[in-house]
């Protein structure tokens, strides 16, 4: 006999967990399928967790959620060859009862969330890969098939939260292959270190944490960014660039990460730390223009699989959780009203997304991916110029300041030309507006 559920959620990442938990809490008969050995086994995130979305789904999550450190300081660095120029913001006001941002280790969070999901009454089955969507004669999705014997399972609606590759949607002809310039490949290491060393090097106490977001020459002119996060007793360091750039460039991701670790401003921060875990993952970077069809007869797609990622602000998991919640809320509303899970009814999900920060933010930055992809100077020439300018300005060598300013101006004009500078300023404005 074929099992039948109100909803099937595919994937136990942030979006799938949000959807499953929300559905189970509303009393629906929901099945979550995960291909990994346990929830989180396959998941990789930098990672910073933004509390607001999780709090909306699980208000008292702070009681037992295994977060690492709450962030009290944000640094943004532009790397030169042997220097950085950047900004810091640190505030004791971030030390509240309900901090807004935490460093996390994704697998720990998803394991914890998995327990919450089972407690909420959902059926969670791991080590089971969904191989295809099952449709009826009229093309409506009525269930899934898994890689196990007797693997056919039916449901009123299928929520695909299967991550950046969105294999199911692709196999089902609902999405096209992602263009290489629309995905980044990021690699990271979790490095073990004595917590006392973290606290000493970054000026922290208790569970305070620091985040460093990095851009610059270390990506060898490719479109990409790097990061260094403080966890409880480890540091996470990583770097990622667009796959299209890796393809045409001659630098491998792990070589780039090694270079980052050896950089003279980074090396002292990670000295003595021992690599514990190495991970790599793809990140959807195409933004608004890369968002695929999000719903249809009997199906919806959420999280990375829907390309929900705000590259400009390094937000992804919060978009994932919010989209998972909205998809679940849509199902709950239809169920209550006794309506079918047809494309016309599930359009409510798209309306919810459009009305939220997800689509509003993605739309705001819709030009960013294209502009960055075609203007590599933002990742190579400018960090270099700014570092050189700072070096010149902060070297006191009896050269008068007017001459120094002229030298700096000249270096910019020489590298980018007056028209180039004006054009770049205009492009940056367009990208972020």
């Amino acid at each position, binding site marked *: 006999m074929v*099992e039948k559920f109100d909803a099937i959620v595919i994937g136990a990442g942030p979006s799938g967990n949000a959807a499953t938990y929300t559905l189970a809490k509303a009393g629906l008969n929901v099945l979550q399928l995960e291909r990994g050995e*346990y929830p989180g086994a396959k998941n990789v995130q930098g990672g910073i967790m933004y509390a607001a979305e999780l709090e909306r789904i699980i208000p008292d999550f702070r009681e037992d959620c295994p977060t690492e450190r709450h962030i009290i300081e944000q640094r943004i660095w532009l790397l030169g060859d042997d220097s950085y120029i950047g900004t810091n913001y640190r505030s004791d006001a971030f030390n509240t009862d309900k901090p807004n941002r935490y460093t996390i280790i994704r697998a*720990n969070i998803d394991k914890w969330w998995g327990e919450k999901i089972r407690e909420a009454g959902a*059926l*969670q*089955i791991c*080590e*089971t890969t969904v191989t295809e969507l099952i449709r009826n004669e009229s093309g409506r999705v009525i269930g899934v098939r*898994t890689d*196990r*014997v*007797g*693997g*056919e*399972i039916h449901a009123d609606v299928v929520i695909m939260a299967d991550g950046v590759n969105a294999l199911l949607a692709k196999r089902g002809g609902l999405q096209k292959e992602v263009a290489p310039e629309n995905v980044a490949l990021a690699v990271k290491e979790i490095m*073990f*270190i*004595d917590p006392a060393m973290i606290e000493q090097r970054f000026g922290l106490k208790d569970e305070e944490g620091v985040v460093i977001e990095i851009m610059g020459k270390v990506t060898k002119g490719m479109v990409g960014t790097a990061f260094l996060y403080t966890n409880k007793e480890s540091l996470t360091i990583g770097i990622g660039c667009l796959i299209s750039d890796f393809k045409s460039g001659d630098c491998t991701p792990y070589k780039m990460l090694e270079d980052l670790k050896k950089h003279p401003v980074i090396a002292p921060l990670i000295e003595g730390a*021992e690599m*514990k875990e190495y991970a790599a993952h793809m990140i959807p970077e195409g933004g608004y223009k890369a968002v695929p069809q999000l719903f249809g007869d009997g199906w919806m797609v959420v999280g990375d699989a829907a390309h929900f990622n705000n590259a400009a602000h390094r937000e992804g998991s919060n978009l994932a959780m919010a989209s998972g919640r909205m998809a679940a809320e849509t199902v709950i509303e239809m169920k209550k009203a006794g309506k079918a899970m047809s494309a016309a009814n599930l359009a409510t999900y798209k309306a919810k997304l459009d009305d939220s920060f997800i689509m509003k933010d993605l739309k705001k930055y819709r030009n960013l991916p294209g502009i960055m992809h075609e203007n590599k100077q933002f990742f190579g020439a400018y960090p270099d110029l700014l570092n050189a300018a700072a070096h010149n300005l902060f070297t006191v060598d009896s050269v008068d300041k007017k001459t120094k300013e002229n030298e700096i101006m000249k270096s910019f004009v020489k590298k980018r030309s007056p028209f180039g500078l004006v054009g770049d300023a205009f492009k940056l404005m367009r990208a972020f507006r």
Partner: protein
Amino acid sequence: MHIVVCIKQVPDSAQIRIHPVTNTIMRQGVPAIINPYDLFSLEEALRIRDQTGARVTVLCMGPPMAEQALRKALSLGATDAVLLTDRKFAGSDTLATSFALVSAINKLSAEEPVDMVFCGKQTVDGDTAQVGPGISTRLGLQQLTYIEKVESVDLEKREITVHRRSEGGVQVLKTSLPCMITMLENTNTMRFGTMDDMFRAARYKLNLWSKDDTNCDETKVGLKGSPTVVSKVFVPKPRAEKSKFIEGDTPEAQAQAAIDTIFGAQPKLAEDLMSAR
């Protein structure tokens, strides 16, 4: 036909790390798995089940978190699962553990007589290989250790034929049921459970048995019932001696150089060998 498979939840020894600062074993974050040797026994039990329609009950003694190991065993196809969990069992050595497991097997036998007990060859955390034989001794079962193949099970004659690996070769043994079997590693490949198994494992209401549920003598389990004393735990020192390269122009010269080196280091051995000549 009723088969009991005893499993243990152990830390995944492949993923244990040494804390860089304190040099102690870090159990935190190390995944707990079914003792890998137990899986060969579970698979063999399931194969007998496939042929005979036997009931396969997995039995585990451990803390409440060992539920994961039992659910995993159910998802691989086991019929039933029992978790023997009680603070009073904590600190049991191999003697006390086998005693506690025997009391649970007796309770299972009262439900449906147990014909075969499968155990792992040994665990990857304790490595003693004592619990299986401990069970068979107490229950008076035929003891079949280091089995590489179960050739046949004859339910009418109540006979079993197995291949047992021994130092000199393979023994083909025939004996009567009930028996206790420990399987050698790599003698079979664990199956991939069906979708039905997965559903059943996820929904199964686990049987939790305490010491009192099994009517087990309190003085024979836990720390009280454990005569084993761990006096010291230490990390073996790496060998200080460096390897030596033995050189010579001809094979004969190389052999002579090797003998000279050995005899140089072991004068007593040289003396004994020479006098034996």
